[in-house]
């Protein structure tokens, strides 16, 4: 089980709302990103534990970039 969290679109990470080891629920907000003049949330696609976080606040991201791994 587990899943990868991918960037929904090009933009910038504004806030990282979890840390490695945190338990998360499906559809929980785990990143806040900004793009095209709007802030939006990146939600967890599954429930599990955060294994790895690949980005930090202020990082520029491309669509489909790997943001985090959940297991």
């Amino acid at each position, binding site marked *: 089980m587990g899943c990868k969290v991918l960037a*929904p*679109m090009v933009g910038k990470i504004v806030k990282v709302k979890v840390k490695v080891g945190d338990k998360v629920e499906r559809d929980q907000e785990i990143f806040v990103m900004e793009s*095209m*003049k*709007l802030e*939006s949330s990146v939600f967890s696609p599954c429930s599990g534990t955060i294994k790895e976080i690949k980005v930090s606040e202020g990082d520029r991201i491309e669509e489909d970039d790997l943001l985090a791994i959940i297991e």
Partner: protein
Amino acid sequence: MEKTWRELIEELEARKAHLREGGGKELQEKEHAKGKLTARERIDLLCDPETFEEYDLFATHIGRDYGLDKKELPADGVIIGFGKVNGRGCMVYAEDFTVVAGTFGERHGKKICKIIDMARTYGYPVVGINDSGGARVTEQMGALSQYGQLFYRHIQASGVVPQIALIMGPVAGGQAYSPALMDFIFMVEKTSSMFIAGPPLVEAVVYEKTDEQSLGGPDVHARITGVSDGTWADDRECLAKTRELLSYLPLNNKERPPYLVPEDSPDRRTPELEEIIPTDQKRLYNMRKVIEVIVDRGSFFEIKKEFATNLIVGFARLNGHVVGIVANNPIKYNGALDYNASDKGSRFIRFCDAFNIPLINLQDVPGFLIGTKSEHNGIIRHGAKMLYAYGEATVPKITCVVRKAYAGGYLAMCSKDLGADVVYALPTAEICLMGPQGAVNILFRKEIAASPDPERTRAEREAEFMAKYVNPTYAASLQHVDDIIQPAELRIKLIRALEMTINKVEKSPDRKHGITPV
């Protein structure tokens, strides 16, 4: 001794019954086992009971070689005719997979061409049910030439009568371009596929191992390519949805779409929109909910639901009148238009314009999607299609700015300048050439740099810019917006604007045709 009438009639009916069996019971059961219906069962579900008139049941194939001269291919593997759908006429062809895998031979092709010619001549939509192993190789130029004849007819009928392709089995090779030249394509889960070369050829020629579903199954065409307009669970659902789609379309381009006496009230207020649309511009919402609230209850029929989900398109009714809805959906890309959304939107707009269907445009668009990836995907030439399609359309065009309407996105979602007849704005509308951030960076760069508290100066300048320019009052003062309205009034206002503009007549310049960006 001469035969009696009774004998002649019995012979005739026996012959017809035999031909109607197609490839026979055994092969029909094989189709059922795959979850498919037979061609005749499909026609019976598509058409109103007892309305289908078949032509060319007696048509025979032309094959002379490889022993085919001794083989009987009933109706040459395709059934054509005229039936009624919801009491309205419709031309139909359905390929019969039980007859040599529904392969496309010369006569088979001629039959399909004939029914499309009839559709165009008599002004009826055509529904083509595709289920074919591809070209009948034994007929060579006969098959190839008929593909060309068929494509030519789709092109001649384009914009004259609606053309709908149902993919209810494989559609392989050149034949895939037949649905591609029609207006709508529906596919069926698990049993349908479309590709220009199937897995064996792909492996032999480009050394890639693949299978039918990952090469061109309904998911691929609904989500990735945008070839398909909708995926349905099985043949039955697909045929029922086709009947539903036809209920929104005029029979031909000389007619108006069918009016239905509405059950919903034209005076129904829509205060639910205050719950759905956040006034906080940073919060997202699903535009689909807005559409469902404003149209006649339960009337929204979405097209290409899974493709380019940042733009929603579909048919609906407003006080009984058919309209085409084009709406940004902030759920993806914050509603920005990318190349796929531009393809999806412009094609839908052109269909509506060709068939006299007024357009309702709901704007929440931060612009065209920017960045290297978007530019390299050709957002300039693709985005141009949206502008072109709206600018070209002469049907009533009614726009509401829900929230953002920035820059090129504002124009590409049909502003006054692209010919919108009526433009409304909600109080949350932000209409501008450039957002406050970008504008303040350009206008006050020096002042911000020199300020003892640059962030504060920036915030002050942004707030001032917002108040001055980024609001519907500014746009309305310059007549870009006809009225600023409450969410609760949206349905009522759209209906009134539609009923005011419904007899609009606008002539395009006299020319052969424009050069649509592609």
